[in-house]
């Protein structure tokens, strides 16, 4: 199948005051086909939000994409003009932001905010657009749609705000949705509901999705493939089932082990020390020699400090960047 999105060797860095610069992403590559859900797993400092912003060239003024290409439907977005990008954003590729409490305009009604997105991209008359707004909101809110449409964001609950953001994102029928931690501030029941909404969107509209999160549990049973990001580099990439049940990269392994699992909880295991990854995943300065994870890796070897590991193919399109497996 022809991929609708192909990211090749993406390098992004931020320039800091004082002339220094900080690498947010290095050599990130992956592909996405239509209707596929790619889960991007990353904690703070992994560069996941930078990835989301870079795909649509929405970096702040001190961010620069030094290398790489982002091919969307055959065209390199990084070479597109500002006008072309404006036309693509919201219409062909949509971004669902984290923190719905601040991603919506505080003084414009929810329905109007969805309408604005439609008005920006479609040239139909106002009435047609209002019809469409009602349709989109109806698909996400059912009977409550009218009330939600007339409400201001601060009058809505976290889950409702998130749905409004999703409505804005799907209004123009994009083929790719990038969701950056869309369930971060929600409680588990609402989280499940929103995940269900995303699943429905994929099933009914054939939407391809990049779902960015720091919680691997959310990706179980939801994502088709998982990309693990650490220190701005791809640590592991493969089918969700494989990566989540038998991870290969020491970071992924450490991460999963440090999460308490309800079904495994017994009286003897309770209140014992959780296996954890020592140290901090704070910002990694440029340049960096060797593997990014080496300082915290329990399986570190000689080579790890000297060179950066290349991606090793473990078969079944499962790749790992670790010297343990070659490279």
């Amino acid at each position: 199948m022809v991929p609708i999105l192909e990211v090749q060797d993406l390098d992004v860095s931020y320039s800091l005051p004082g002339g220094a610069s900080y690498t947010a992403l290095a050599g990130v590559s992956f592909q996405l086909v239509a209707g596929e859900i790619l889960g991007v797993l990353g904690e703070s400092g992994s560069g996941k939000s930078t990835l989301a912003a870079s795909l649509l060239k929405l970096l702040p003024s001190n961010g620069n994409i030094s290398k790489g290409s982002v091919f969307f439907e055959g065209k390199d977005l990084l070479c597109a003009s500002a006008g072309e990008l404006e036309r693509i954003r919201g219409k062909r590729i949509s971004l669902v932001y984290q923190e719905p409490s601040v991603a919506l305009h505080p003084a414009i009604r929810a329905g109007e905010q969805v309408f604005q997105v439609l008005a920006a991209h479609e040239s139909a008359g106002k009435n047609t657009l209002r019809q469409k707004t009602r349709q989109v909101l109806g698909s996400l809110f059912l009977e409550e749609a009218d009330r939600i449409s007339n409400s201001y964001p601060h009058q809505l609950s976290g889950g409702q705000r998130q749905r409004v953001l999703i409505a804005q994102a799907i209004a123009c029928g994009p083929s790719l949705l990038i969701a950056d931690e869309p369930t971060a501030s929600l409680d588990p029941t609402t989280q499940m509901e929103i995940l269900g909404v995303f699943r429905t969107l994929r099933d009914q509209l054939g939407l391809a999705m990049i779902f960015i999160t720091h919680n691997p549990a959310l990706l179980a049973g939801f994502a088709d493939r998982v990309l693990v990001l650490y220190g701005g580099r791809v640590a592991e990439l493969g089918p969700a089932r494989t990566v989540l049940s038998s991870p290969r990269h020491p970071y992924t392994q450490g991460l999963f082990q440090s999460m308490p699992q309800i079904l495994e909880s017994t009286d003897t295991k309770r209140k014992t020390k959780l296996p954890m990854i020592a140290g901090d995943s704070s910002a990694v300065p440029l340049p960096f020699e060797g593997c990014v994870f080496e300082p915290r890796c329990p399986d570190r070897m000689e080579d790890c400090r000297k060179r950066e590991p290349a991606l090793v193919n473990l078969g079944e399109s499962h790749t790992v960047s670790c010297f343990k497996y070659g490279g």
Partner: protein
Amino acid sequence: MRFFLRRLSHAFLLLVGVSILAFLFTTLAPGNYFDEMRLNPQIAPETMAALRAQYQLDRPLPVRYVSWMNSVLHGQMGFSFAYNSPVAPILFVRARNTLLLTITATLIAWGIALPLGVWSAERFGRLPDRLLSWATAALLVIPDLALALGLLVLTVRTGWFPTGSMTSLDFGSLSLGGKFRDLALHMTLPVAALVLSGLPLLIRHVRAAVAEVLDAPFMLAARGHGIPRRTLLYRYALRVAANPLISLFGFSIGALLSGSLLVEVVMSWPGLGPLLLESILSRDLYVVIDGVLFSTMFLVSGNLIADILLYWADPRIRTESAAR
């Protein structure tokens, strides 16, 4: 609606309180209008006594207050000793002259500050913005008096504009268009002085308010939806940046009567400022009290208008006050 009525009643009580205080302070201050006359040996003490009785200067304070209140309700607002007439007509004429200046100056100042502030905020931190910051800082540092005098000096040297008063001597005989032009010419200098002194603060506030909004997450999210730049700026950013600016606008309205005193005196504009000044100096009691009250009224309504505008502009305030 309830909100509005409550604020209105508060405003009214405030005005009454201010009037009492103003009355107290001015009457309790030593000296009265006739002190100067007393020094004049040609005026007999009986005449003085008669005058004082006529103007009720002998009566106790509460009585005088009540009769002044009465006079206000009848539209006369007390009596001016200097002008020998009820205060109301004098006050209104002078206030009108002042408002002519200040309203024009406020409109022009905001008209320049808004686009300039927005333009500056868009280029925050870069060279054009920093140049503007230096320019406004420089303007801010120059005292209003120096500005006014500087403009006067300029005009005396070049003769481009008349150097004082509101109208030319032959104002009455001019055609309508001529009257307009004459007034405009006379207004130019004082308005320029007012605009120049008020502009720096306004620009800085607009710039700060807009810059803060431009960085907000919802702006970035809207960009992510492909909303065009112009809509982003005017529909999205300004609506939120309006909050602090509306308060500032209320301030501007509040200062409509009081902010131009210096300029009026220096440029001999027959406004409320010079009137108040001479009345204070000559102890023209009721003019002072009424002038203070008038200014306070504007200040209070300025705040009230700002509150109403905020209520209307920000849905969060609207629903919060309903919930309370």
